[in-house]
């Protein structure tokens, strides 16, 4: 998968954070002066150790938390005086634990909840619910109580429920936690598809492999501050910062770096990239058996 960098696509700023400071009443969970901007249509990962402020920052984007100091602008307008309900039209937040959302008697009701809260017409609510059920492959569970579904399906339900509100920005907080290999891939491909339709995706995660394979941009938080921020590759290259945040880079990246003395030019973000680069390197060093078998 080629890293798609099309600067002109990202000229517009989606979210702008200006000197954001935040403390909980008891001094816990602090953000210390964060300034950055997230481009329209970008796929951004927010990484950092536990306690670095990832989730705290993300919750500010739809007003679940309010800054102690500083401003946040969504599409150029301050979100300060706008309620969570209002912001939820544009910014969707998928929580880490799907069981913290699920309450409906049927999956249908669960998904329709969000659109109904937005005050949409009955037809529109129905249209969106059907669309969400189909997109997340949940149509056959529509009449079942979501609390009875398997964890992987509950995860999909919570995603579908937020998707149905058709937000422009989608924040995913550890969306693959508890999913197996296949489930993780499905979830991330869905995120990519949504990104391709123009939605801005903000992924808060520990899974560095996912960051490498899916995120165009990356924000590294440490101690409530922005430690590094930019396109994924350039953030990964700052390994001293990542190391001090106890972040282990993906195996393919490390392989690429360690093979640099042998001529491996640029560390790879994905398996495919790695193999391609390695293959070329092999050809260059005149490996004769290439192609045999």
């Amino acid at each position, binding site marked *: 998968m080629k890293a798609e960098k099309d600067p002109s696509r990202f000229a517009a700023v989606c979210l702008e954070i200006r000197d954001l400071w935040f403390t909980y009443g008891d001094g816990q969970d602090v953000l210390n002066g964060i300034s950055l901007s997230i481009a329209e249509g970008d796929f951004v990962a927010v990484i950092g*150790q*536990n*306690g670095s402020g990832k989730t705290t920052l993300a919750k500010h984007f739809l007003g679940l938390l309010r800054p102690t100091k500083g401003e946040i602008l969504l599409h150029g307008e301050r979100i300060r005086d706008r309620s969570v309900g209002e912001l939820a039209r544009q910014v969707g937040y998928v929580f880490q634990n799907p069981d913290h959302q699920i309450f409906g008697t049927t999956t249908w009701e669960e998904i329709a909840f969000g659109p109904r809260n937005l005050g949409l017409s009955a037809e529109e609510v129905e249209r969106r619910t059907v669309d969400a059920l189909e997109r997340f492959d949940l149509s056959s569970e529509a009449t079942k109580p979501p609390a*009875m579904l*398997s*964890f*992987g399906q509950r995860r999909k339900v919570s995603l579908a429920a937020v998707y149905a509100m058709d937000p422009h920005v989608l924040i995913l907080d550890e969306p693959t*936690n*508890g*999913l*197996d*290999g*296949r*489930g*993780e891939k499905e979830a991330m491909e869905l995120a990519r598809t949504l990104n391709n339709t123009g939605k801005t995706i903000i992924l808060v995660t*520990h899974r*560095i*492999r996912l960051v490498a394979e899916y995120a165009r941009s990356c924000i590294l938080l440490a101690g409530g501050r922005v430690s590094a921020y930019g396109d994924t590759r350039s953030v990964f290259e700052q390994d001293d910062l990542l190391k001090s945040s*106890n*972040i*282990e880079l*993906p*195996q*393919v990246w*490390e*392989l690429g770096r*360690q*093979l640099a003395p*042998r*001529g491996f030019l640029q560390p790879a973000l994905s*398996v*495919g990239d*790695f*193999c391609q680069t*390695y*293959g070329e*390197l*092999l050809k260059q*060093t*005149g*490996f*004769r*058996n*290439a*192609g*045999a*078998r």
Partner: protein
Amino acid sequence: MTTAVVIQDLRYAYPNGAETHEASWVLRGVDMVVDEGEFLSIVGPTGSGKSTLCLALNGVVPNTTGGRMRGDVSVFGVNTKKHPVAALAKLVGVVFQDPETQLFNMDAEAEVAFGLETMGMPSEEIGERVDWALALMGLREMRDRSPLQLSGGEKQRLAIASVLAMTPKVLVLDEPTNNLDPQGKRDLFTALWDLRQSLGLTVIMVEQETEFVAEFSDRVALMRDGHLEIVGPPATVLGDVERMREIGVAIPQVTEVAYCLNRDFGLGLAFTRFGEALLSLEAKLHES
């Protein structure tokens, strides 16, 4: 080599309406032998029965959960169907995914002491054992702390300490690194490995993190649909990329690289760990 665990044709179905909504068999004929002191990892897609298997090792399945069970599970010769869970707890310690529900005392010291109190151990001996267990898991300074004040990694270590205090011979862990950050995951795997080395503990661990599994396990058991697909060294099990992909379990990235390179360039690579991968790849470049 002593045998720690023997599982013979284990089949199990939860009673109607519990765990799975259908009354179908969650375990469908599992056969497995685990040696004493072995570090065995169990991998598999969700719904393959891994958690149920963990619960079968200490008798919660079937003694607490009810349902129907066929076949046998024996730990050091003790059959789980014939002994109450409380008795098996001295032999098999189980650590679950969510530390929150396993740390039900007010502070670390009370937590570690709990199992011993329940066993009826004399008070003076409890003191020594608590000191030992806390030190073992690096938690001496956290003695008076409430579980609410501990980090994710510390919570899991405390859960392990409170189980280890009862000196079981087998330690079973069900996805213990799920809520930990990458450093926490590594620390936990390392701690378990050290325990195996220093105490001769048999470690059976259900995990999704196949990269760590490859690095630390002696053998890997792959489960699918309630039975054991294959058991063997990490290289054999995790190295079978097509099977892993078909079943839907994540593969260590380096193994994917080997597969890719073999497919595209006909190289005969086989590795599941980072160290071996680097050496092999360097060697191949040299070979020209």
